[in-house]
């Protein structure tokens, strides 16, 4: 990446600013990003854009034992609705 790239990026990003200001930090950013190659052999080909495709299983290792369990009821849409707080 060079000064011309930075000028182009400033234009694309709609920012009126001196390209020179970005050059010193650009070297550091390139050094940071060049580390990506260290790990690439381990990485699968498929990119992960978003963590939402996580496969989640309900947890089995910890049974709920508090008295609170008895009070819990679902609301009309089936979502958990807490009982009112009780004074200690």
């Amino acid at each position, binding site marked *: 990446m060079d000064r011309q790239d930075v000028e182009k990026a400033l234009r694309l990003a709609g920012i009126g600013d001196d390209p020179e200001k970005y050059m010193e930090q650009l070297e550091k950013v390139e050094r940071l990003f060049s580390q990506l190659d260290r790990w690439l052999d381990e990485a699968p080909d498929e990119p992960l854009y978003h963590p939402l495709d996580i496969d989640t299983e309900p947890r089995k290792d910890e049974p709920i034992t508090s008295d*609170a369990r008895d009070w819990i009821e679902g609301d009309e849409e089936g979502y958990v609705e807490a*009982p009112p707080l009780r004074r200690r």
Partner: protein
Amino acid sequence: MLRLLDLFEADDPISLSEKYYERLRRWEGRLNMFITLREWGEIQLVHEPGKPLSGGLIPIKDNISTRGLRTTCGSRILENYIPPYDAYAVERLREIGLEVVGKTNMDEFGMGSTGENSGYGPTLNPWNTGHVPGGSSSGSAAAVAVAGGAALGSDTGGSVRLPAAYCYVLGLKPTYGLVSRYGLVSYADSLEQIGILARYPEDMAYILYHISKLDTRDMTMSRTEAREELRERLINLYTGGPSGLDGLRIGYSPELIEMADDEVAGEVYRALDKLVELGVKAEEIDLGFMEAGLSTYYAIAMAEASSNLMRYDGVLYGSMEREGDYWSSVYRTRGMRLGEEVKRRIVYGTLITSAGYSGRYYIKALRIRRWIRDMLIERLGRVDAVLMPTSPSTPPRLGEVEGVDMYALDLYTVIPNLTGHPAINIPAGFVGGLPVGIQLVTRYFNDDLLIRIARGLVGVLYDPSKEVEMDG
């Protein structure tokens, strides 16, 4: 030090809130915690029996929308922006009776690890005002440190946990998809969540329970059963359910811990010893893949930021600096009203997503992200949680780190944002008068386990009632 759930027990919660407000007001002149702190006379507190925490107050980070209350995101480009609606999390807090006391200072649009990159001046660390409070949720962390209660922040790469560590408070980044992002001003959508800062674990559990209710307006919210089961367990936490840690397996990597400064690593090992005394089984595991986090995170965060922040042009959002034709005005507005760190991330993000460069950095980062996520899931199949420092150092001095050098502070915090896992900062002690925190990461939708561990460490490692001295 306000405990939020005490409002429910109190005969006169409004007088508790008045004391809390006076404390915030007294510290505000010294620390610059708020971009907007409402006047006491302007806040209409009423005690409504149907709302359990009515009469209570809560600070909200200034990138979370609040109806009728200025929301600047720490940026001069939004200095006059008043949202016409509340974020879902704020709606939920109002439903339980909490009133927004003010909007807290932050690194501009969440881009910063120190709290210094705000268009409204830096927040100072309450424990030593010559040091940074951490960012980007700097004001929220400082407010909880000096007055207790809880506050909302947002966490894109550690923005709740890092300031929590530097200010000696609890800070939780929930599982991705647990809390609605409706009304959270986007910086990097695939990484960020609204998080909670609090002094007391039960307060954190109570707030999380309420703000994690499903919001159909946010398509990134999880619709799984695991979500609802977690919410049940949160109720157990704040109603005094089981708190023992006996038998829990916690993984740690000496190589990873020792990448931090010696005195920080020492505090982490001390915390591990305390956990073992509580019955936890500590297991050494390989977490070498976490070193890949920083470069992967910053490539993705900058790419998403460059897209998200295009809307601040002085027309769609923001105030315009007029000069010549339309485009000249846009260039001038963005050049003048966005801060240096924000412009850097937009420019580098634009570069790495442009033709010719996206394959060199961005796509590689997304592939490594999948590898990191798979590795962490695998490791968390062997242990219940992994332990590491929250930050590699104690809070730096004001002005000590800036620009790309600052990114190293996020060494430990970026991984859970890349993978979506929940993570917490728990205060572990002090080194040279400055706070040190430990970070625990666990499986998806086991956020309650993190709060439970925090509760187990109260009185053993962490003192939630510890007061900050004004002269400190």
